[in-house]
Protein backbone atom coordinates (compact mmCIF):
# COMPACT_ATOMS: atom_id res chain seq x y z
CA UNK A 1 0.00 0.00 0.00
CA UNK A 2 2.87 2.39 -0.55
CA UNK A 3 1.82 5.80 -1.77
CA UNK A 4 -1.60 5.33 -0.17
CA UNK A 5 -3.08 8.80 -0.15
CA UNK A 6 -5.21 9.52 2.91
CA UNK A 7 -6.56 12.74 1.54
CA UNK A 8 -7.84 12.23 -1.93
CA UNK A 9 -9.60 8.94 -2.05
CA UNK A 10 -13.32 9.27 -2.22
CA UNK A 11 -14.45 5.84 -3.29
CA UNK A 12 -16.40 5.39 -0.10
CA UNK A 13 -18.44 8.51 -0.52
CA UNK A 14 -21.55 6.43 -1.08
CA UNK A 15 -21.20 4.56 2.19
CA UNK A 16 -23.03 6.05 5.12
CA UNK A 17 -21.15 6.58 8.35
CA UNK A 18 -23.46 4.19 10.14
CA UNK A 19 -22.69 1.51 7.60
CA UNK A 20 -18.98 2.08 7.91
CA UNK A 21 -19.16 2.01 11.70
CA UNK A 22 -20.98 -1.31 11.46
CA UNK A 23 -18.29 -2.69 9.21
CA UNK A 24 -15.59 -1.43 11.47
CA UNK A 25 -17.15 -2.87 14.59
CA UNK A 26 -18.43 -6.15 13.31
CA UNK A 27 -15.96 -7.22 10.69
CA UNK A 28 -13.11 -6.42 13.04
CA UNK A 29 -11.03 -5.17 10.16
CA UNK A 30 -8.81 -2.13 10.13
CA UNK A 31 -10.45 1.01 8.81
CA UNK A 32 -8.67 4.18 7.97
CA UNK A 33 -10.32 7.34 9.15
CA UNK A 34 -9.57 10.90 8.34
CA UNK A 35 -11.17 13.72 10.23
CA UNK A 36 -11.89 16.92 8.36
CA UNK A 37 -13.80 19.73 9.95
CA UNK A 38 -14.91 17.40 12.71
CA UNK A 39 -16.51 14.91 10.33
CA UNK A 40 -14.74 11.59 9.98
CA UNK A 41 -14.71 9.91 6.64
CA UNK A 42 -13.77 6.34 6.10
CA UNK A 43 -11.19 5.89 3.43
CA UNK A 44 -11.61 2.19 3.12
CA UNK A 45 -10.38 -0.97 4.66
CA UNK A 46 -6.68 -0.69 5.20
CA UNK A 47 -5.57 -4.27 5.31
CA UNK A 48 -1.83 -3.96 5.59
CA UNK A 49 -1.81 -0.19 5.05
CA UNK A 50 0.55 1.72 7.27
CA UNK A 51 0.35 5.30 8.38
CA UNK A 52 4.06 5.51 7.86
CA UNK A 53 3.88 6.96 4.37
CA UNK A 54 1.89 9.96 5.59
CA UNK A 55 3.72 13.09 6.46
CA UNK A 56 3.11 14.60 9.87
CA UNK A 57 3.28 13.08 13.31
CA UNK A 58 2.09 9.56 13.97
CA UNK A 59 1.61 8.14 17.41
CA UNK A 60 0.23 4.81 18.54
CA UNK A 61 -2.41 3.76 20.98
CA UNK A 62 -2.41 0.38 22.65
CA UNK A 63 -4.80 -0.60 25.40
CA UNK A 64 -6.01 -3.27 27.77
CA UNK A 65 -3.00 -5.59 27.69
CA UNK A 66 -4.29 -7.40 30.82
CA UNK A 67 -0.93 -9.06 31.37
CA UNK A 68 -1.58 -12.00 33.70
CA UNK A 69 -4.94 -12.87 32.16
CA UNK A 70 -4.99 -16.61 31.38
CA UNK A 71 -8.67 -17.51 31.09
CA UNK A 72 -10.28 -19.30 28.09
CA UNK A 73 -10.92 -16.03 26.17
CA UNK A 74 -7.12 -15.84 25.73
CA UNK A 75 -4.83 -18.11 27.77
CA UNK A 76 -1.77 -16.13 26.65
CA UNK A 77 -2.41 -12.40 26.95
CA UNK A 78 1.33 -11.75 27.22
CA UNK A 79 1.83 -13.51 23.89
CA UNK A 80 -0.73 -11.38 22.05
CA UNK A 81 0.80 -8.23 23.57
CA UNK A 82 4.12 -9.39 22.17
CA UNK A 83 2.48 -9.85 18.76
CA UNK A 84 1.11 -6.31 18.95
CA UNK A 85 4.55 -4.94 19.75
CA UNK A 86 5.94 -6.99 16.88
CA UNK A 87 3.45 -5.30 14.58
CA UNK A 88 4.61 -1.91 15.80
CA UNK A 89 8.25 -2.83 15.26
CA UNK A 90 7.44 -3.93 11.72
CA UNK A 91 6.12 -0.48 10.78
CA UNK A 92 8.33 1.02 8.08
CA UNK A 93 8.57 4.37 9.88
CA UNK A 94 8.86 4.75 13.61
CA UNK A 95 5.90 6.45 15.31
CA UNK A 96 6.74 9.43 17.54
CA UNK A 97 5.60 7.71 20.73
CA UNK A 98 2.92 5.48 22.19
CA UNK A 99 0.06 5.96 24.59
CA UNK A 100 -1.35 3.10 26.66
CA UNK A 101 -4.91 3.65 27.80
CA UNK A 102 -4.81 1.38 30.82
CA UNK A 103 -5.33 -2.12 32.14
CA UNK A 104 -1.68 -2.84 31.53
CA UNK A 105 -2.03 -5.73 33.98
CA UNK A 106 -4.90 -7.94 35.00
CA UNK A 107 -4.37 -8.01 38.78
CA UNK A 108 -1.73 -5.31 39.49
CA UNK A 109 0.88 -7.89 40.48
CA UNK A 110 4.51 -6.80 40.41
CA UNK A 111 5.38 -9.69 38.06
CA UNK A 112 2.59 -8.62 35.69
CA UNK A 113 3.91 -5.04 35.57
CA UNK A 114 7.43 -6.41 35.03
CA UNK A 115 6.32 -8.67 32.18
CA UNK A 116 4.35 -5.87 30.53
CA UNK A 117 7.36 -3.55 30.74
CA UNK A 118 9.68 -6.22 29.34
CA UNK A 119 7.48 -6.64 26.25
CA UNK A 120 6.34 -3.05 25.68
CA UNK A 121 9.87 -1.68 26.01
CA UNK A 122 10.81 -3.76 22.96
CA UNK A 123 9.02 -1.12 20.85
CA UNK A 124 11.74 1.33 21.94
CA UNK A 125 9.22 4.16 22.11
CA UNK A 126 8.32 6.62 24.82
CA UNK A 127 5.08 5.38 26.36
CA UNK A 128 2.57 7.65 28.06
CA UNK A 129 0.31 5.65 30.35
CA UNK A 130 -2.95 6.18 32.15
CA UNK A 131 -4.17 3.52 34.59
CA UNK A 132 -7.15 1.23 34.18
CA UNK A 133 -9.03 -0.15 37.18
CA UNK A 134 -6.98 -3.37 36.88
CA UNK A 135 -3.75 -1.42 37.48
CA UNK A 136 -4.74 -0.11 40.91
CA UNK A 137 -5.81 -3.26 42.79
CA UNK A 138 -2.61 -4.18 44.64
CA UNK A 139 -3.03 -4.03 48.42
CA UNK A 140 -1.25 -0.72 48.87
CA UNK A 141 -2.21 0.71 45.47
CA UNK A 142 1.37 1.78 44.85
CA UNK A 143 2.82 -0.31 42.02
CA UNK A 144 1.33 1.68 39.14
CA UNK A 145 2.37 5.03 40.63
CA UNK A 146 5.87 3.79 41.42
CA UNK A 147 6.35 2.81 37.81
CA UNK A 148 4.38 5.35 35.83
CA UNK A 149 3.38 8.12 38.20
CA UNK A 150 6.50 10.26 37.98
CA UNK A 151 5.63 13.86 37.18
CA UNK A 152 1.89 13.25 37.37
CA UNK A 153 -0.73 14.81 39.62
CA UNK A 154 -3.32 13.21 41.88
CA UNK A 155 -4.05 9.65 40.87
CA UNK A 156 -1.77 10.01 37.83
CA UNK A 157 -3.08 12.70 35.45
CA UNK A 158 -0.79 14.94 33.38
CA UNK A 159 -0.41 16.74 30.08
CA UNK A 160 2.34 17.17 27.51
CA UNK A 161 2.89 18.66 24.07
CA UNK A 162 4.11 16.81 20.99
CA UNK A 163 4.08 17.72 17.33
CA UNK A 164 1.92 20.78 17.93
CA UNK A 165 -0.77 18.75 19.71
CA UNK A 166 -1.62 19.11 23.39
CA UNK A 167 -2.09 15.69 25.03
CA UNK A 168 -3.92 15.24 28.31
CA UNK A 169 -3.90 11.91 30.17
CA UNK A 170 -6.81 11.60 32.60
CA UNK A 171 -7.62 9.06 35.32
CA UNK A 172 -11.27 8.01 35.60
CA UNK A 173 -10.92 4.72 37.48
CA UNK A 174 -10.49 5.83 41.11
CA UNK A 175 -12.93 6.76 43.83
CA UNK A 176 -15.83 5.21 41.94
CA UNK A 177 -19.26 5.62 43.53
CA UNK A 178 -21.77 2.83 44.10
CA UNK A 179 -24.20 2.62 41.21
CA UNK A 180 -22.11 5.03 39.14
CA UNK A 181 -19.78 5.02 36.16
CA UNK A 182 -16.17 6.15 35.67
CA UNK A 183 -15.20 9.21 37.67
CA UNK A 184 -12.81 12.14 37.17
CA UNK A 185 -13.54 14.03 40.37
CA UNK A 186 -13.49 17.71 41.31
CA UNK A 187 -9.72 17.99 41.85
CA UNK A 188 -8.84 16.59 38.43
CA UNK A 189 -11.52 18.67 36.69
CA UNK A 190 -10.17 21.85 38.29
CA UNK A 191 -6.67 20.91 37.14
CA UNK A 192 -7.97 20.25 33.61
CA UNK A 193 -9.75 23.60 33.42
CA UNK A 194 -6.55 25.31 34.49
CA UNK A 195 -4.40 23.26 32.12
CA UNK A 196 -6.49 24.42 29.15
CA UNK A 197 -6.81 28.03 30.25
CA UNK A 198 -5.04 30.51 27.98
CA UNK A 199 -4.18 27.86 25.42
CA UNK A 200 -4.73 28.82 21.78
CA UNK A 201 -8.05 27.47 20.54
CA UNK A 202 -6.34 26.32 17.37
CA UNK A 203 -4.22 23.85 19.35
CA UNK A 204 -5.42 20.32 18.57
CA UNK A 205 -6.30 18.54 21.81
CA UNK A 206 -6.06 14.83 22.52
CA UNK A 207 -7.72 13.63 25.71
CA UNK A 208 -6.99 10.04 26.71
CA UNK A 209 -8.31 7.99 29.61
CA UNK A 210 -9.17 4.37 30.30
CA UNK A 211 -12.97 4.32 30.55
CA UNK A 212 -14.80 6.03 27.66
CA UNK A 213 -15.41 9.73 28.28
CA UNK A 214 -18.73 9.38 26.49
CA UNK A 215 -21.66 7.22 27.46
CA UNK A 216 -21.34 4.02 25.47
CA UNK A 217 -23.55 1.75 27.59
CA UNK A 218 -24.29 2.71 31.20
CA UNK A 219 -25.89 -0.67 31.96
CA UNK A 220 -22.39 -2.10 31.77
CA UNK A 221 -20.74 0.93 33.34
CA UNK A 222 -19.28 2.07 30.01
CA UNK A 223 -19.16 5.80 30.52
CA UNK A 224 -17.83 8.48 32.86
CA UNK A 225 -20.10 10.18 35.36
CA UNK A 226 -18.62 13.68 35.13
CA UNK A 227 -17.08 13.63 31.64
CA UNK A 228 -19.55 16.32 30.55
CA UNK A 229 -17.61 18.83 32.63
CA UNK A 230 -14.33 17.87 30.97
CA UNK A 231 -15.90 18.20 27.53
CA UNK A 232 -17.18 21.67 28.37
CA UNK A 233 -13.60 22.81 28.94
CA UNK A 234 -12.55 21.70 25.43
CA UNK A 235 -15.62 23.12 23.70
CA UNK A 236 -13.94 26.13 22.11
CA UNK A 237 -11.07 24.15 20.61
CA UNK A 238 -11.11 23.48 16.89
CA UNK A 239 -10.00 19.88 17.04
CA UNK A 240 -10.53 17.51 19.94
CA UNK A 241 -9.85 13.78 19.84
CA UNK A 242 -10.80 11.55 22.77
CA UNK A 243 -9.06 8.17 22.95
CA UNK A 244 -10.21 5.49 25.37
CA UNK A 245 -9.97 1.75 26.02
CA UNK A 246 -11.82 -0.41 28.58
CA UNK A 247 -14.49 -1.81 26.25
CA UNK A 248 -12.10 -3.96 24.16
CA UNK A 249 -13.62 -3.05 20.79
CA UNK A 250 -13.55 -0.21 18.31
CA UNK A 251 -16.30 2.38 18.63
CA UNK A 252 -16.44 5.89 17.31
CA UNK A 253 -18.71 8.87 17.72
CA UNK A 254 -18.49 12.46 16.56
CA UNK A 255 -20.08 15.38 18.34
CA UNK A 256 -19.31 18.74 16.77
CA UNK A 257 -15.56 19.28 17.00
CA UNK A 258 -15.00 16.21 19.17
CA UNK A 259 -14.17 12.75 17.86
CA UNK A 260 -14.47 9.92 20.37
CA UNK A 261 -12.68 6.68 19.67
CA UNK A 262 -12.05 3.48 21.62
CA UNK A 263 -9.27 1.02 20.85
CA UNK A 264 -9.17 -2.74 20.74
CA UNK A 265 -7.51 -4.68 23.53
CA UNK A 266 -4.34 -6.66 22.93
CA UNK A 267 -5.66 -9.38 25.27
CA UNK A 268 -9.29 -10.41 24.74
CA UNK A 269 -12.44 -9.08 23.07
CA UNK A 270 -15.58 -8.03 24.91
CA UNK A 271 -19.10 -8.24 23.47
CA UNK A 272 -20.88 -5.37 21.75
CA UNK A 273 -23.20 -3.51 24.15
CA UNK A 274 -26.22 -5.55 25.14
CA UNK A 275 -25.34 -8.59 23.01
CA UNK A 276 -24.32 -10.78 25.96
CA UNK A 277 -25.41 -11.22 29.59
CA UNK A 278 -22.34 -9.28 30.77
CA UNK A 279 -19.33 -7.33 29.51
CA UNK A 280 -17.00 -10.17 30.54
CA UNK A 281 -14.30 -11.63 28.28
CA UNK A 282 -15.77 -12.98 25.05
CA UNK A 283 -14.59 -16.43 23.99
CA UNK A 284 -14.39 -16.74 20.22
CA UNK A 285 -12.92 -19.52 18.15
CA UNK A 286 -9.12 -19.40 18.11
CA UNK A 287 -8.94 -18.52 14.42
CA UNK A 288 -10.98 -15.36 15.03
CA UNK A 289 -9.28 -14.08 18.17
CA UNK A 290 -6.55 -12.04 16.51
CA UNK A 291 -9.02 -10.28 14.25
CA UNK A 292 -10.61 -8.81 17.39
CA UNK A 293 -7.37 -7.70 19.07
CA UNK A 294 -5.17 -4.90 17.82
CA UNK A 295 -3.59 -1.49 17.97
CA UNK A 296 -4.46 1.98 16.69
CA UNK A 297 -2.19 4.48 15.03
CA UNK A 298 -3.10 8.15 14.89
CA UNK A 299 -1.70 10.57 12.37
CA UNK A 300 -1.75 14.34 12.73
CA UNK A 301 -0.81 16.70 9.94
CA UNK A 302 0.40 20.09 11.05
CA UNK A 303 -1.83 22.95 9.97
CA UNK A 304 -4.67 20.75 8.81
CA UNK A 305 -6.27 20.08 12.17
CA UNK A 306 -7.07 16.52 11.42
CA UNK A 307 -6.22 13.30 13.12
CA UNK A 308 -6.55 10.15 11.10
CA UNK A 309 -7.04 7.01 13.14
CA UNK A 310 -6.17 3.59 11.78
CA UNK A 311 -7.24 0.54 13.73
CA UNK A 312 -5.20 -2.47 12.82
CA UNK A 313 -6.11 -5.94 14.07
CA UNK A 314 -3.33 -8.35 14.98
CA UNK A 315 -4.49 -10.53 12.13
CA UNK A 316 -7.16 -10.66 9.43
Amino acid at each position, binding site marked *: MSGFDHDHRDEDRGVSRRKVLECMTWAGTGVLWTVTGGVPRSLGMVGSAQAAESPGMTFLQISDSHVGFDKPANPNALGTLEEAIGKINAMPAKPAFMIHTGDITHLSKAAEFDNAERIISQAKLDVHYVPG*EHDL*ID*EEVKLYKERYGRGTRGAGWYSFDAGGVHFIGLVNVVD*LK*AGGLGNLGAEQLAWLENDLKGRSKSTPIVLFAHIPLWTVYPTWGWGTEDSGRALEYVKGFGSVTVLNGHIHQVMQKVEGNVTFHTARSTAFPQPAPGTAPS*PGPMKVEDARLRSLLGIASVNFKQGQERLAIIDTPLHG
Partner: protein
Amino acid sequence: MSTINRRDFGIAVAAAMLLPATAARAEGMEVHIDNFVFQPAQLNVKLGTTVTWTNRDDIPHTVVCAGKFRSKTMDTDDSFSFTFTAAGDYKYFCSLHPHMTGMIRVE
Protein backbone atom coordinates in the same frame (compact mmCIF):
# COMPACT_ATOMS: atom_id res chain seq x y z
CA MET B 1 -25.46 -39.09 66.02
CA SER B 2 -25.54 -42.69 64.87
CA THR B 3 -27.88 -43.65 67.67
CA ILE B 4 -30.13 -40.61 67.53
CA ASN B 5 -33.70 -41.49 68.44
CA ARG B 6 -36.90 -40.09 67.01
CA ARG B 7 -37.46 -37.69 69.96
CA ASP B 8 -33.98 -36.17 69.81
CA PHE B 9 -34.27 -35.82 66.07
CA GLY B 10 -37.53 -33.92 66.58
CA ILE B 11 -35.81 -31.56 69.03
CA ALA B 12 -32.97 -31.04 66.58
CA VAL B 13 -35.43 -30.15 63.83
CA ALA B 14 -37.26 -27.72 66.16
CA ALA B 15 -33.95 -26.11 67.12
CA ALA B 16 -33.06 -25.77 63.47
CA MET B 17 -36.38 -24.05 62.85
CA LEU B 18 -35.73 -21.60 65.68
CA LEU B 19 -32.32 -20.74 64.30
CA PRO B 20 -32.85 -20.62 60.58
CA ALA B 21 -29.85 -18.41 59.94
CA THR B 22 -27.50 -20.90 61.55
CA ALA B 23 -29.14 -23.87 59.94
CA ALA B 24 -29.23 -22.33 56.50
CA ARG B 25 -25.74 -20.92 56.63
CA ALA B 26 -24.15 -23.71 54.68
CA GLU B 27 -26.28 -23.30 51.59
CA GLY B 28 -28.21 -20.05 51.96
CA MET B 29 -25.87 -17.34 53.19
CA GLU B 30 -23.85 -17.04 50.09
CA VAL B 31 -23.73 -14.44 47.38
CA HIS B 32 -22.36 -15.39 44.01
CA ILE B 33 -20.95 -13.05 41.44
CA ASP B 34 -21.94 -14.20 37.97
CA ASN B 35 -21.91 -12.06 34.84
CA PHE B 36 -21.13 -8.87 36.79
CA VAL B 37 -24.19 -9.37 39.03
CA PHE B 38 -24.46 -10.09 42.77
CA GLN B 39 -26.88 -12.98 43.24
CA PRO B 40 -29.09 -12.61 45.13
CA ALA B 41 -29.03 -8.83 44.86
CA GLN B 42 -30.64 -8.63 48.29
CA LEU B 43 -30.13 -11.16 51.04
CA ASN B 44 -31.97 -11.09 54.38
CA VAL B 45 -30.09 -12.64 57.29
CA LYS B 46 -30.28 -12.88 61.08
CA LEU B 47 -27.86 -11.12 63.38
CA GLY B 48 -24.56 -12.96 63.72
CA THR B 49 -24.71 -14.51 60.26
CA THR B 50 -21.59 -14.88 58.17
CA VAL B 51 -22.12 -14.13 54.51
CA THR B 52 -19.67 -15.39 51.91
CA TRP B 53 -19.27 -13.82 48.47
CA THR B 54 -17.68 -15.90 45.69
CA ASN B 55 -16.53 -14.55 42.35
CA ARG B 56 -17.41 -16.87 39.48
CA ASP B 57 -16.48 -14.42 36.71
CA ASP B 58 -13.30 -14.41 34.62
CA ILE B 59 -12.78 -10.82 35.77
CA PRO B 60 -11.80 -9.72 39.29
CA HIS B 61 -14.37 -8.02 41.52
CA THR B 62 -14.53 -6.52 45.00
CA VAL B 63 -17.20 -6.22 47.68
CA VAL B 64 -17.21 -2.82 49.39
CA CYS B 65 -19.60 -1.37 51.95
CA ALA B 66 -18.40 2.10 52.89
CA GLY B 67 -17.14 2.20 56.46
CA LYS B 68 -18.24 -1.41 57.15
CA PHE B 69 -16.31 -3.91 55.11
CA ARG B 70 -14.04 -4.10 52.09
CA SER B 71 -12.78 -7.26 50.44
CA LYS B 72 -9.45 -7.66 48.75
CA THR B 73 -9.67 -7.97 45.00
CA MET B 74 -11.22 -11.37 44.31
CA ASP B 75 -9.96 -13.19 41.27
CA THR B 76 -11.92 -16.08 39.75
CA ASP B 77 -13.27 -18.44 42.46
CA ASP B 78 -11.90 -16.30 45.31
CA SER B 79 -14.20 -15.70 48.29
CA PHE B 80 -14.70 -13.09 50.95
CA SER B 81 -16.66 -13.50 54.21
CA PHE B 82 -18.07 -11.02 56.68
CA THR B 83 -19.99 -11.65 59.91
CA PHE B 84 -22.82 -9.21 60.60
CA THR B 85 -22.99 -8.26 64.28
CA ALA B 86 -25.34 -5.28 64.00
CA ALA B 87 -28.78 -5.00 62.46
CA GLY B 88 -29.38 -2.77 59.49
CA ASP B 89 -29.28 -2.49 55.72
CA TYR B 90 -25.79 -2.92 54.29
CA LYS B 91 -25.63 -1.59 50.76
CA TYR B 92 -22.46 -2.65 49.00
CA PHE B 93 -20.91 -2.50 45.52
CA CYS B 94 -17.93 -3.58 43.44
CA SER B 95 -15.38 -0.76 43.53
CA LEU B 96 -14.04 -1.85 40.12
CA HIS B 97 -17.45 -2.03 38.44
CA PRO B 98 -19.60 0.33 40.47
CA HIS B 99 -22.76 -0.45 38.51
CA MET B 100 -22.68 -3.76 40.41
CA THR B 101 -24.61 -3.22 43.65
CA GLY B 102 -26.21 -5.40 46.31
CA MET B 103 -27.63 -5.30 49.82
CA ILE B 104 -27.57 -7.45 52.95
CA ARG B 105 -30.48 -6.81 55.34
CA VAL B 106 -29.58 -7.90 58.88
CA GLU B 107 -32.57 -8.40 61.20
